[in-house]
């Protein structure tokens, strides 16, 4: 059954998956493109600058992959009004886990492509002294961050219309409260508090807060 669900997920998201895997393949090579030979006195400068410039592209690909796969996970069910899912001899929890695992597997596939390309790009680049390549660290961070974002987005996209409406309403109330707090010159802003909590040290999104550097000191 997992294979069928994986195949339906692949059909829905293959364009996005192929595009994002292509980007994951290209970015490490593009970031190393300006690297001079290690005998050039400025090679460390150029490598660090390129690595810093391209470092933002990896979390962006992770979020894009999570978004595309989470959206694609429920598309076949939504289109078929859940008739196929209801005919299956499995519980809803089991079905949900199968759908989740199918998307996660495709996400890890993009991670594997990134791992391969960062490994090859780092191996091909002569490193000046004191600089290090981190292909494995970067790939694992990508996978963890992607999995975290995918889990949140998968859950959100699987909500019922009523729950989704509640979340939208709560968000609107939050924004109105935040604007009101600003207008009243209050020191406390609920939106800031929530954003701080979302990216705080105990949040699942804290994994995005790091130096995503393929080459670093």
């Amino acid at each position, binding site marked *: 059954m997992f294979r069928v669900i994986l195949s339906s997920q692949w059909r829905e998201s293959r364009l996005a998956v192929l595009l994002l895997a292509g980007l994951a393949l290209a970015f490490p090579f593009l970031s190393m493109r300006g690297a001079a030979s290690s005998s050039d006195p400025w090679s460390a400068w150029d490598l660090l600058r390129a690595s810093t410039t391209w470092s933002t592209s990896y979390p962006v690909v992770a979020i894009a992959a999570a978004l595309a796969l989470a959206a694609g996970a429920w598309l076949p069910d939504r289109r078929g009004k859940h008739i196929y899912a209801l005919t299956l001899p499995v519980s809803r929890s089991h079905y949900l886990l199968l759908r989740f695992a199918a998307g996660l597997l495709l996400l890890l596939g993009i991670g594997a492509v990134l791992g391969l390309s960062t490994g090859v790009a780092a191996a091909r680049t002569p490193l000046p002294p004191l*600089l290090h390549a981190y292909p494995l660290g970067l790939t694992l961070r990508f996978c963890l961050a992607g999995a*975290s974002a995918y889990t949140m987005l998968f859950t959100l996209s699987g909500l*019922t219309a009523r729950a989704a409406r509640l979340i939208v309403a709560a968000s609107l109330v939050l924004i109105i409260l935040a604007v009101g707090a600003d207008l009243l010159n209050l020191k406390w802003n609920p939106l800031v508090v929530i954003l701080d909590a979302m990216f705080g040290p105990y949040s699942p999104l804290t994994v995005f807060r790091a130096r995503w550097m393929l080459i670093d000191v």
Partner: protein
Amino acid sequence: MSRFPGVALSAALALAAPLAAQDSAATLARMEMRLDSLQRLVAEGDRAALDGSATDTVVAGRIRVATSAALRPFVEPAAAAAWTGVLARFGPAIAAKRQLPIQQFGGSRGGTLEQRDIPELATAFEATAARAIWGQLDSLLSRWLEGSYPITPLGPDALEEVLEDLVRMPARPNRACLDGDPGACASVLGLGSVPDRLGEWYPPAAWARLARMANAPRSAAEEPCYDHQEIEACRAIILSARIPPPVGMAGRQLLMQLALDAGGPGAFGRLTADSGVTVEHRLAAAAGMPVDSLLVEWAATIRAATPGSPMPSARMTLLVLGWCAVVLVLSRAEGRWG
């Protein structure tokens, strides 16, 4: 005086300037002088307005803050905390001797404050006082620090920046310095006097690009340097501006901070006691230890700031996976056909 009339007046003056000026450069110079005097006038007006709105003065040690009576309950403890900080940093003898400017806070434009704002306010008052004390430093130390005084302790970002400079700049002593060689670190930080600082710091192969970074005024020497890598032409360009140091000023600030921290109370007094000796002697006197030991500590502090691999830690991995599990379990309770 508000800004608007000043700006309107300057616009009127600009329109009134003779359109058929005989000499446009002279006209421009005249206009600049008028604009400068107008800006001064506007600034003085602003100051006068603020002075007028400040109805109370808080005094803590030598820190004086002009403020309003309504803000006094906040300004008073903040100024006291700031003075305690100044005393701890510079010692009573120095703090009592130096001229500190009257600080202005609040007045009619002031917003509301809360009790929890007091530490932030104290930090601001202390920083202003510290800036004034550092600003009265003798020329030798001022030149060495290039005006970048260690007003507040350097954070992890600044340390990482120093480390990155040490790694990416093609300066000869950088690698040995990171390995803990105090002589190399002294060179990196511009201590000691050498006849050819450029040659000591950088190999000639790096000079052409260094010349571009030196931000020198354009000259005829550029072409042979940039196009043909002629090192003497490059040297001329770099020396006509400022030789980019192997590490930014944050490196020198850190050394100063370490010396003052190591020396404890009275360190700043020892630093400024004898302006006739070299910077390294004064740092050693302030720290109460040989300058080589201080430089070894500096290198160790920088090495400790190494960010390392982006590999997520075990704690972070567990945290994220735990969150994912919780969210998934919760999502089972609510769903499409739940």
